[in-house]
C-alpha cells in the first residue's frame, strides 16, 4: 500500500480528470478479478466524480483520481491496477495521445517488442512525431505519441495508428502482425492499434500490475531501451515496485512530455 503513496507525485498527473477503471482483486491476485468502471455508490462524499455516457446511451458515474486521498481510498478497495482511457472525462472524444500497444505472441518476447518499438520510434521521427515508451508491466511495451490538441479525434488516431501498423507489418512480415487471432501471432509482435478508442483503457504509467512479482508499468528512456535491446537483456524490462521508487527519485517523470507536448498527425 505504501507504493502508491510514495509514487503519488508521479502517477497523479497521469490519472487526473480521467475516468478510472478499477481492476479489482477482492480476494488477492491469485483469485479472480473484475473490471469496475462505475464509481462505487458507497463512496465517501469527497470523491470527485464525472458523469459519462456509455455506448448504449446509459449514463454512468466514474471516479476521478485527482488527489492523494482518493488514490489511497481506491487502493483500499483492493484495486491494484489503475486503468485509464486516453481521453479526459470532460472531453471523452478527444484523445490526448495516440498509442501503440505492442504485445508479444507465443514464442516472442519483450526483446522482439523492443525491436518493433525502435522501428516505430524511427518511423514516427521521420514524420516529426516524438514518441515515449513504457513497459506494460507484463510482457509488452506501450508507445505513446502525445497530441494534446483539442482537434484530435479517435477517428484520426485510429486511422493513423492502423496505417502505421499496416506499413510496419508489410515491411517486417516476420516480426509484426496486426492480426488479433492468437494463432497468427506466434513468434510475432501484435500491434494493437485498436486501443485508440474512447471505450478502451490502458494501464496507467506507474501503476502496479497484479501478478506474483509486483511489477510496475514503467517509462523507459529510448537510450535505455536501445541499450537493453542490444545486450538482449530482457530482465531489465521487469521493473519491480522497489526499483520504480528508487528510479523516479533520480529520473523524475519520464512521461511528463506525454501530458504536455503538442503534436499534430500529418497527412490526414
Amino acid at each position, binding site marked *: 500500500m505504501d507504493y502508491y503513496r510514495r509514487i503519488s507525485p508521479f502517477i497523479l498527473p497521469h490519472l487526473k480528470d480521467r475516468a478510472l477503471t478499477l481492476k479489482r482483486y477482492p480476494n*488477492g491476485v*491469485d483469485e479472480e478479478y*473484475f473490471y469496475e468502471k462505475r464509481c462505487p455508490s458507497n463512496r465517501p462524499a469527497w470523491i470527485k466524480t464525472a458523469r459519462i*455516457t456509455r455506448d448504449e446511451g446509459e*449514463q454512468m458515474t466514474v471516479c476521478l483520481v485527482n488527489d492523494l486521498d482518493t488514490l489511497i481510498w481506491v487502493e483500499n478497495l483492493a484495486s491494484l491496477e489503475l486503468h485509464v482511457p486516453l481521453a479526459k472525462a470532460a472531453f471523452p472524444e478527444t484523445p490526448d495521445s495516440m498509442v501503440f500497444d505492442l504485445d508479444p505472441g507465443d514464442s516472442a518476447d519483450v526483446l522482439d517488442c523492443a525491436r518493433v518499438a525502435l*522501428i516505430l520510434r524511427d*518511423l514516427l521521427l*521521420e514524420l516529426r512525431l516524438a514518441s515515449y515508451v513504457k513497459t506494460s508491466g507484463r510482457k509488452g511495451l506501450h508507445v505513446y505519441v502525445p497530441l494534446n490538441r483539442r482537434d484530435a479525434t479517435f477517428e484520426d488516431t485510429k486511422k493513423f495508428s492502423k*496505417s502505421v501498423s499496416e506499413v510496419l507489418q508489410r*515491411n517486417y512480415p516476420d516480426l509484426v502482425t496486426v492480426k488479433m487471432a492468437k494463432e497468427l501471432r506466434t513468434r510475432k509482435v501484435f500491434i494493437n492499434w485498436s486501443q485508440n478508442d474512447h471505450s478502451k483503457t490502458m494501464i496507467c504509467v506507474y501503476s502496479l500490475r497484479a501478478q506474483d512479482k509486483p511489477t510496475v508499468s514503467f517509462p523507459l528512456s529510448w537510450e535505455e531501451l536501445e541499450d537493453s535491446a542490444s545486450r538482449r537483456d530482457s530482465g531489465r524490462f521487469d521493473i519491480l515496485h522497489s526499483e520504480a521508487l528508487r528510479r523516479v527519485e533520480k529520473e523524475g517523470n519520464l512521461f511528463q512530455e506525454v501530458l504536455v507536448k503538442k503534436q499534430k498527425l500529418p497527412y490526414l
Partner: protein
Amino acid sequence: MKGTRSAPLPSKLSANRGKDTAEQGIWSGTVSFSLVAIPVRLVRAVEPDRVSFRMLHSRDYSPLLRRMVCPEEEKIVPAEEIIRGYEITPGKYLLITDEELESVSPERSRTIEIIEFIDMKDVDSIYYDHPYYLVPLKGGEKSYSLLAEVMRRADKAGLAKFVLGEREYLVAVKSTGSALSLITLHYCDEILGDEDIVPEEARIEPEETSRMKRIIKGMISDFNPDKYADKRREKILTLLKKKARETAPVEAPEVEEEEGEGPADLIAMLQKSMRKVKKNR
C-alpha cells in the same frame, strides 16, 4: 470471419459446452448468518440448451445488426438521443431519467445475509426463478461443506435477500448434492393466482380416488433426468455436423474496418518514410 477451413465447427459442437463460461463468476462476496461468513463466488448453474443462429443478409452473407430506428424519421437513432419513457396510456409517457432510476436502485452489497432457515418443501416450485451455484473461495471450503452437509440432512434452506445487478432478490441458499446452490425466488406479488384455474368442487367417488392412486403407483419411477434430452437440439447438431463435412461455409464480406487500407496518401507517405528508416538502420 474466415470460412474456408473445412471443419470450422467441431469445437463449437463438442460436448463440454459452457465449461469455461461456467468458471466465470457473476458475483463474489460472503454468505453469512450469525457468526458464520463463507466467502463464495456465484456462477451460473444452467445454460440454455438452444442452438443459436446468426441472421445474415441473403445477398452478401453480411451478419445483420439490430438498430434502434425512429419510425417518424425512418432513421437510426444515436445512443445520446435515446431516453426512457413509461407508457401510462397509449401514446402518453412519463419520462424517467437514469438518475431517478438509480435513486431507487438498492445499494450493491458484498453479502448474502441469511435471515431465516426454512423447509425447502414449503417452497412451491412456482416460486423458483433462476438457479446458480455457489463456489467456495480460498479459506471458505470447510464452512462451505459443513453448511451444505447440515442443510442437506435437515432438508433446510437459508432464506436471504441479495442484491444482484440493479435488483434486490429473495433467494434460497440450499444444498444440491454436496454443493451449495442459490435459487432466486419470485416475489409473492409476481405469482398469478390460481382462482380461475381450479374448477368448482365436484363430488369424487372413493373408487375413483383409489383407481387414480393405482395408475400412478404403476408408473412410479426414480427421477433420472439424463433419460431425457432435447431431441431437436441433437438433430440440429447432427445436421450441422453433416453440413460442415459436405459443404463449404459461405463467407461474410470483410468489414471495411478490418481490412481496408488507410488513406492512400498517408500509406504512401508512411511507406516513403519507412524506406528512409530502413536505409538508416
